[in-house]
Each structure stands twice: as structure tokens, then as C-alpha cells.
């Protein structure tokens, strides 16, 4: 294999646009890998926001769930999430339907999912007693040697072989690599969708997130250490989840054309209201946003000395966006250090990794399609719930449905794994039997 014509060497300068998880992970792992290879690099992270501030100034708008896969991967890397960052450690989920509810404890019987705030907490927070996840990661990158530039990037130009970054307040040239870690919710990606660029941003869909302050005691009493997942058969609503976080709960909704009517239909559903204390007002959230979530991969997320990571390249469908950011950041950092930073290097060594996520998302689309169909019909919702209930009651019964739902809702396993488990003859037989019993009114 011929050696790349563009390699990072001692003194190379790297610009990272965006200091969210993808940008911070990239800087952290790039500098770590460079040090292991005896290469001294300079890394600037351009991030105008201060993640220690409450929303919207410091928030990156997401449900704030760190999957158990990511928690394990980070711990293996030597990155252990401190209690000052994790707002709630989760060990179970509660499945809510109109025919009942069922709690399911994690297969590991261990708290391995972390509920976090991306920024300094919801609007109006009285006292910030924790560290936001994004601020924590950015400080890790800084401790590795990255330089944080608190400025918004306004343009990027090629200057001969190198790149120039213009931002509010300063211009800096001579970058050997530009890493775009600006998410789909920022305007920065537009800078790269110019006539002479082959990059096209991922397609997106709108989601809704609301936060309510209930107080720590009330959150513990009503929501415990569980994610609360709702399959209610509300038209256009694919999926909704309540995530307890310290003294707040976050409600995250995914669906088609989310609007005020859909929000109201969900928040006033008896199954949702029954989770909350009697004096809860669904129409008085402390904080809310309608962030966009990527639903497809970007076209051509690389060029000579430029690479896109995080959800500006590809993300996992509907789940574990932070986990996907970690994986793409590491893959791009490994490619840059070990193979080179030419377009051909990214095409050969980085893009196959993105394709794997894309391929897995296709299985995810099928799983969410099936889930969507099943939740529209009452007797199928009942069959799913009864199957989970039976599995939880009897330790001898393999928890097939429980594990499928756990991995689908928490993003803990690749969608291909979940898909193969759905095709298992034992799963199909038991679910088919459950459907028959449920249809007959059992």
C-alpha cells in the first residue's frame, strides 16, 4: 500500500470545529494516539458556547442518555464518568402501554446507563451542583493538551496546501487538518455545502425534548432508577421516553411531524399523567427544545485534509448518538494518525466504518417499523407486555422480548443483533402464541 502523501507529523496543526462530544473525543484520542506514536501535535477546538451555562446557552439539545455500551467502552479506555457528571444511574426500564405497565431490570442487574445533562442544566435552574457532560469531555480534551478557542467559525478557506479558519475575533492559518464536529443543529455545516463541495449534510427530522423540575425526592419516588418508555398507539408518535435526572425529568419524543398537538396528545395521556405527581402541569415545562436528529448519512464527509465526524457524518438511528460520536471520532483520529489525512486515506480507512453504522441503521429502520406497526394495535401491545411480564416472573424463561426491547430502547446493542434475535424461532413462536392468546382476550 503506498504511503499517504499527506501525513501528520511533529508540529502539525489541527482545527476542530465544535466542542461537543464528537469534537472533544476526537481531540482526546488524537492527542493520546499521537503521544503513543511520539508525535507532537497542536489541536485547536473552536467552540463558542460555554457548556457550564444553563440552556440554551450551554446545551447541546439531546435526551442525555449514555448507553451501557458507551459506559463500558469508556471505562475500558480508562475514562470513568464521575458522580458529579452522572445525574442518575439507570438499571431498568418501565414499559408503559394503555393495557398496563411492566418494569424490566437490566440483564446485567447493574446500573450501567447514565442520565446526564449536556450543558449546565435546564433554563431557570436554581443552583448548578453538577458538571455537564460536554463540559466534562471538553476539559478532558484540554487536559490532554487541546487549546479551546471560544469563538464561532465564520469561514474556512484553502491556502495552498493548508487551511485557514476565520472566526469571530481571529483568523488562523496553517492547519494541516480540519475536523468538522459541528452537529446537525448548528448552521456551521452550511459553510461546507458550497458549489465546489461534494459534501451534503445528513437528512434530519424534528424531535421534542421537555424538562420538568419535580425535586430529587419526587423524581426518585415516581421514576426510580428507570427509563420510562411509552408505546401508546398515538398516531405519528414513534416513541417517547422519560429520563429521570437528579431533580428534573426529561421527556424525549420521536415521531413524524412533531407539533404542539402531538406533544399535548402524549403529555395528557392518562398513562403519562399517572407517572407524575398530582400537582404536575404538563403545559408548564422548565425548558423545552425541538432539536433536529439525523436520519441518514452525509454524502462525501471527507476531502483532502478535511473530515466530518459525529452526526455531521453518520449517527445511530434514533439512539445512542453520543456513542456514535465516540466511535466516529476515534475512527477518524486513528485514520489521521496511522494512515494519513488525504481524501483517499479517509475513503479507504474511515468511510468503511461509517458504512457499518449505516448498514446497521437499515436493520434499525426495520425494527422501528415493526415496533411502529405493533404499537398501533391494542392486542399486539398487550401481547408484548404480557410476554415481558411472563419473562420477569419466571427466571427460567429466557427474557427474549425483554432483552429485545431493552436493546432497542437503550441502544445497547447493534440493530443487527436485535434483528437476528427477533428472527429466532423461539422468539417468533412465543410471540405468535402471545398474539393468539391476546387476540382471544387472554
Amino acid at each position: 500500500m503506498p504511503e499517504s502523501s499527506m501525513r501528520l507529523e511533529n508540529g502539525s496543526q489541527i482545527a476542530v470545529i465544535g466542542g461537543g462530544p464528537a469534537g472533544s473525543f476526537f481531540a482526546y484520542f488524537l492527542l493520546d494516539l499521537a503521544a503513543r506514536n511520539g508525535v507532537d501535535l497542536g489541536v485547536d477546538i473552536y467552540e463558542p458556547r460555554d457548556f457550564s451555562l444553563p440552556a440554551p446557552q450551554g446545551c447541546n439539545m439531546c435526551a442525555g442518555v449514555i448507553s451501557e455500551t458507551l459506559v463500558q467502552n469508556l471505562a475500558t479506555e480508562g475514562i470513568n464518568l464521575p458522580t458529579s457528571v452522572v445525574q442518575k444511574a439507570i438499571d431498568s426500564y418501565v414499559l408503559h402501554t394503555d393495557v398496563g405497565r411492566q418494569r424490566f431490570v437490566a440483564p446485567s442487574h447493574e446500573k450501567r446507563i447514565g442520565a446526564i445533562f449536556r450543558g449546565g442544566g435546564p433554563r431557570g435552574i436554581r443552583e448548578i451542583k453538577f458538571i455537564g457532560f460536554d463540559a466534562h469531555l471538553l476539559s478532558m480534551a484540554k487536559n490532554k493538551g487541546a487549546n479551546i478557542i471560544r469563538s464561532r467559525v465564520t469561514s474556512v478557506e484553502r491556502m495552498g496546501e493548508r487551511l485557514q479558519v476565520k472566526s469571530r475575533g481571529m483568523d488562523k492559518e496553517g492547519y494541516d487538518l480540519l475536523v468538522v464536529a459541528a452537529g446537525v443543529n448548528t448552521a456551521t455545516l452550511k459553510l461546507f455545502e458550497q458549489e465546489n463541495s461534494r459534501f451534503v449534510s445528513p437528512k434530519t427530522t424534528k424531535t421534542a425534548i421537555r424538562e420538568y423540575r419535580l425535586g430529587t425526592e419526587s423524581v426518585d419516588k415516581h421514576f426510580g432508577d428507570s427509563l420510562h418508555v411509552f408505546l401508546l398507539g398515538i398516531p405519528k408518535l414513534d416513541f417517547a421516553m422519560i429520563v429521570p435526572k437528579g431533580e428534573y425529568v426529561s421527556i424525549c419524543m420521536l415521531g413524524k411531524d412533531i407539533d404542539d398537538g402531538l406533544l399535548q396528545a402524549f403529555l395528557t395521556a392518562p398513562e403519562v399523567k399517572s407517572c407524575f405527581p398530582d400537582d404536575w402541569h404538563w403545559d408548564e415545562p422548565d425548558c423545552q427544545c425541538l432539536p433536529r436528529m439525523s436520519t441518514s448519512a452525509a454524502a462525501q464527509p471527507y476531502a483532502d485534509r478535511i473530515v466530518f465526524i459525529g452526526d455531521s457524518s453518520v449517527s445511530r438511528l434514533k439512539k445512542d448518538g453520543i456513542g456514535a460520536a465516540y466511535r466516529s471520532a476515534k475512527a477518524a483520529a486513528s485514520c489521521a494518525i496511522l494512515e494519513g489525512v488525504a481524501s483517499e486515506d479517509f475513503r479507504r480507512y474511515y468511510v468503511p466504518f461509517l458504512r457499518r453504522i449505516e448498514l446497521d441503521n437499515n436493520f434499525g429502520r426495520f425494527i422501528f417499523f415493526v415496533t411502529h406497526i405493533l404499537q398501533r394495535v391494542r392486542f399486539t401491545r398487550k401481547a408484548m407486555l404480557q410476554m415481558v411480564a411472563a419473562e420477569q416472573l419466571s427466571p427460567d424463561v429466557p427474557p427474549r422480548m425483554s432483552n429485545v426491547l431493552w436493546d432497542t430502547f437503550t441502544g445497547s446493542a447493534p440493530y443487527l443483533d436485535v434483528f437476528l434475535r427477533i428472527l429466532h424461532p423461539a422468539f417468533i413462536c412465543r410471540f405468535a402464541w402471545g398474539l393468539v392468546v391476546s387476540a382471544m382476550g387472554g
Partner: protein
Amino acid sequence: METGVLGKIYHDAEIVVKQGEKGDCFYVIQDGLVEVIEETDRGEVQLALRGEGEFFGEMSIFEQQVRSATVRALGEARVLTIDKKNFLRRIHEDPSLAFHLIQTLSSRIRELSAEVAQIRAMKEY
């Protein structure tokens, strides 16, 4: 009470892994101390103490053998389990995930080599 505590809490003297048992995971200590003990015919021998951020039980990931030692909490300890399946799947995609683990194993070999050298030197005298 802290609610953001990941992993599982083991109380003083509670066993995390038992020598001779089959293992399909390893562990990372989040908080506290554990002791690694070899159970012999003549009683227990403490092999090592492990603290925050350290691994144990990793041998079962790479060898198809039972646990070589018992590990129990020394005081209250909080421990995170790392599944073998998840670890191997991820390491297949990203071999650099093993760097930290290999670094730890390497430093343990270095420590053991120093101990062996010390024991041999004592025998020669």
C-alpha cells in the same frame, strides 16, 4: 444520597469473583478498594490490592480458563462490569480500545518481574 452512581456496590468482604468459577466479564473499579486473593491448601494469600480506575478479572477475557483468584471488597467498593461480548465486538472494530488494558497488563508484568528478581536474589543469599 448520590443518584448518579454507576456500577454495583459491594460491601466489605463481599466477593466479586470467586476463584475456580467461569468468567465472561472483567471489572473496572469506580470507587474503593478490592483485594485479590489466592485460596491455597494452607489458607489465603493476598496477591494484590486494586483501587479506583484499575481492572481485575481480565484474564478470563483472553483465556478459556476459570478465575485464577478470588476478589473481594475491602471496605465498600463500587465496581463496573465489562461484558466479554461487548468488549470483543468493539475491539474487533477498534483494536486501540485495548491500549489501556495492555498498558495495565504490561505494568503488572513489570511489577511481577521485579518481585521474581527480588525473590531469586533473596534465595541466593
